[in-house]
C-alpha cells in the first residue's frame, strides 16, 4: 500500500524538486571529487540547507541582488541553474564563471556576488540596497549569512544604516547551530531576533522545511520590505549535515545523527522523486566528467588598475 500524500512532498513543484536535487548532488559530487584529489583549495557544502535558496527562488525578482557567502553553491545554483559554470570555476576549467580566479567562494555574475570574508557583504549590500531604493523601486538586496557571522561588527554597522535609511535589505540568516566547529551557544549571546529588534528591524523565524509553508509565511513580509522599503531579517533554523569544509567535522556521532534527522532528502520518497533523483545524480556526474576534461581556464584580463 502506498500512502497517498495530500500535497506534494515539501510543498515542492517539479522545478523545486529538480533544483533541490541538483544542489544536493552537486555538493556530494564535490566531496567525492575532493576525496579523489581532483579539487584544490577548499569548499563548503550546503548539504541540508539546500531548501533555503530553493524556497526563496520564487520570492525573488530578477532585479534583486543576492549576496552569498562561503557556503554559496546552493545560492548560485538556485539563481542560475548552471552547475557546469560553477564546477568549472571550482576546478579552474574553461567556461568558469569567473575564469577560475574566484573559486568556490568568490563569484560575481548578474546580480549575484559572493565573498569569503564573513560579514563583509552586509555594508556592501546596504550600498546596493541604497542604489536599488533610488533606481529600481521594489528591488531587494539579499544577503545570506550564517549564525557565526553575527559576531562581526560589520553586520551591526550595516543593520543600523539599513534601518536608519529604510533600505530594502533582506538578511537571510542560515542558523545551522554551528560556526566552523563552534556551536552557537559558545559564540552568540542573546539571539538573532533580539539583535534585529535592537535596530527596530522586523524579524521572522522559519522552522519549516516545507517550501509552500515557507513561501506563504515570507511572501507578505518580503512584499512589505520591498514596498516599505525596510530591512528584514529572516532566520532559518536549519542543520548542517556535512563537514564545515571538505572533511573537518568534529561533531560527535549523536550530534550528527540529530542533524541528519532533519534532512529533507529521506523525507521525500515518492516515485517522481526517485526518478528525478537518479536522473539528476547522473546528470551531475556527467557534468563533472565533461568539465574535468576541459582545458584549464585562462585569466586574460587580470588588470586591477
Amino acid at each position, binding site marked *: 500500500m502506498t500512502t497517498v500524500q495530500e500535497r506534494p512532498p515539501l510543498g515542492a513543484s517539479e522545478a523545486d524538486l529538480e533544483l533541490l536535487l541538483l544542489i544536493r548532488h552537486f555538493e556530494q559530487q564535490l566531496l567525492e571529487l575532493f576525496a579523489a584529489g581532483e579539487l584544490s583549495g577548499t569548499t563548503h557544502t550546503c548539504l541540508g540547507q539546500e531548501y533555503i535558496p530553493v524556497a526563496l527562488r520564487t520570492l525573488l525578482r530578477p532585479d534583486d*541582488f543576492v549576496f552569498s557567502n562561503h557556503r554559496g553553491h546552493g545560492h548560485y545554483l538556485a539563481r542560475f541553474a548552471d552547475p557546469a559554470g560553477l564546477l568549472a570555476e571550482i576546478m579552474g576549467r574553461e567556461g*568558469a*564563471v*569567473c*575564469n*577560475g*580566479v*574566484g573559486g568556490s567562494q*568568490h*563569484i*560575481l555574475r548578474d546580480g549575484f*556576488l559572493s*565573498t569569503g*570574508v564573513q560579514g*563583509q557583504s*552586509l*555594508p*556592501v*549590500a*546596504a*550600498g*546596493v*540596497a*541604497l*542604489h*536599488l531604493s*533610488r*533606481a529600481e523601486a521594489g528591488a531587494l*538586496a539579499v544577503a545570506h549569512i550564517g549564525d557565526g557571522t553575527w559576531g562581526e*561588527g*560589520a553586520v551591526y*554597522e*550595516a543593520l*543600523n*544604516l539599513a534601518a*536608519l*535609511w529604510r533600505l530594502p535589505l533582506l538578511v537571510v540568516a542560515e542558523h545551522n547551530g554551528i560556526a566552523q566547529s563552534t556551536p552557537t551557544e559558545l559564540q552568540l549571546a542573546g539571539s538573532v531576533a533580539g539583535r534585529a529588534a535592537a535596530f527596530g528591524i522586523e524579524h521572522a523565524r522559519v522552522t519549516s522545511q516545507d517550501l509552500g509553508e515557507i513561501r506563504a509565511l515570507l511572501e507578505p513580509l518580503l512584499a512589505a520590505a520591498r514596498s516599505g522599503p525596510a530591512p528584514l531579517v529572516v532566520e532559518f533554523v536549519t542543520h548542517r549535515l556535512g563537514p564545515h569544509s571538505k572533511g573537518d567535522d568534529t561533531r560527535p556521532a549523536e550530534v550528527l545523527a540529530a542533524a541528519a534527522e532533519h534532512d529533507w532528502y529521506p523525507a521525500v520518497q515518492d516515485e517522481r522523486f526517485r526518478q528525478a533523483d537518479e536522473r539528476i545524480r547522473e546528470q551531475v556526474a556527467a557534468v563533472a566528467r565533461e568539465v574535468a576534461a576541459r582545458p584549464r*581556464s585562462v*585569466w586574460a*584580463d*587580470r*588588470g*586591477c*588598475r
Partner: protein
Amino acid sequence: MTARVVADLNAALHSVMAADEHLHLLGEDVADPYGGAFKATRGLSGAFPGRVRATPISEGAIVGAGAGLALAGGKAIVEIMFGDFIALAFDQIVSFAGRSVSMYGRRVPLHLVIRCPVGGGRGYGPTHSGSPQKHFVGVPGLSLFETSAFHDHTTLLRRMLSLGHPAILFEDKVLYGRRMHAHDTLFHRTGLGTLDPCARFTVEGAGRADCVLVAPGGVAERALAATRSVLLTDEITCEVLVPSRLYPFDLQPLLPVLAAAGRVCVVEESTAGGTWGSELAQQLHTALWDDLRAPVRLVHSADAVIAAAPHLEREVLVQDTDIARAVKEVTAG
C-alpha cells in the same frame, strides 16, 4: 588672492557632484549646516539632496556602502573624518573594494574615492594625527593620491573618479587653510609628467641641482623651506617635486631630472618603517643605479606615536630642519 585649499576642494566636490547624477557622497557629519569636520563638504547636502548623506560613526559600513553604490553602477565619494580611522575600514578597502576589481576573473569597474584628512602639526594627539599612506601601498586594485596646494582639486577628483577602481585621497590637514598655488617667490614652478604631473620647483637662475627632493602634500612646504635654507647657508641647490599620485608611482617622467642631480631625498610625514618612501627608494635604486651618487635618502617622522603637546609633537614629526640636515648629508659625499 587665490582660494584656500579647503575652498578649492569644496568647489571641486560641488563640481564633480553636479557633473554626475550617479555620484553619491557619504561621511560622518558631512551634511549642512555642519558641512564636515574640516568643512570640505559645506553646501553639498543642500545642493544635492538625497545624494549627500551624513552617516553613523561606522567607517567600515560607509566605505562598504560606497563600494555597494559603485558596484551597482554608481559612483561614490566617502569621507573618513580623520584619516586615522581608515584602519576601521581596512577590510572594506583592501579585501572588498580593491580586490573586487579583479578577483572575479575579469575587470569589474568600481568608481570609489575615499577622502582622508591626515597628518599632524595641530596637536590632535596620537589617534588624530597619523599619516596612514604606508599601510595602503601595494594593494592590488587600489590607487593612492595626495592633495597639495599645487594640484587643482577638480582635475584630481575627476581623474580619481574616472579610474574605475578605488582610490584614496590623502589630504594633509595643515594644507586646508593654505592658499592654492601660493609659494615662496624664490622658486620657479613648472610641471613634470602628463598624466599625474608633479609640481616642480626650481630655484630661479640656479644651475643644475645638487639634489632633488620628492615631497608630496603637506611636507612640500617644509621641503621648500629646507631648500631655501640650504641654498642660503650652504649654497646647495635643490629642486622639489610634489607628486599627486603616490601609488602606483610613475617614475618615468622624473628620471632625467633625478639622474642629472644624482642625489635624491624622499620626504614624507609617515612614521618610520615600511613607508611609501622606502618603496619609492627601491624603485629609484633600480632605475637610477648608474646615476646615483649617493643612496636615496629617506626623510620621515620618528618611529613613535604622534604626541599631543606641541613640543613633543615636533620631536616626532618631520621638520624642515630634518630635511635640511638630510640634504646636507646626502650632498656631502
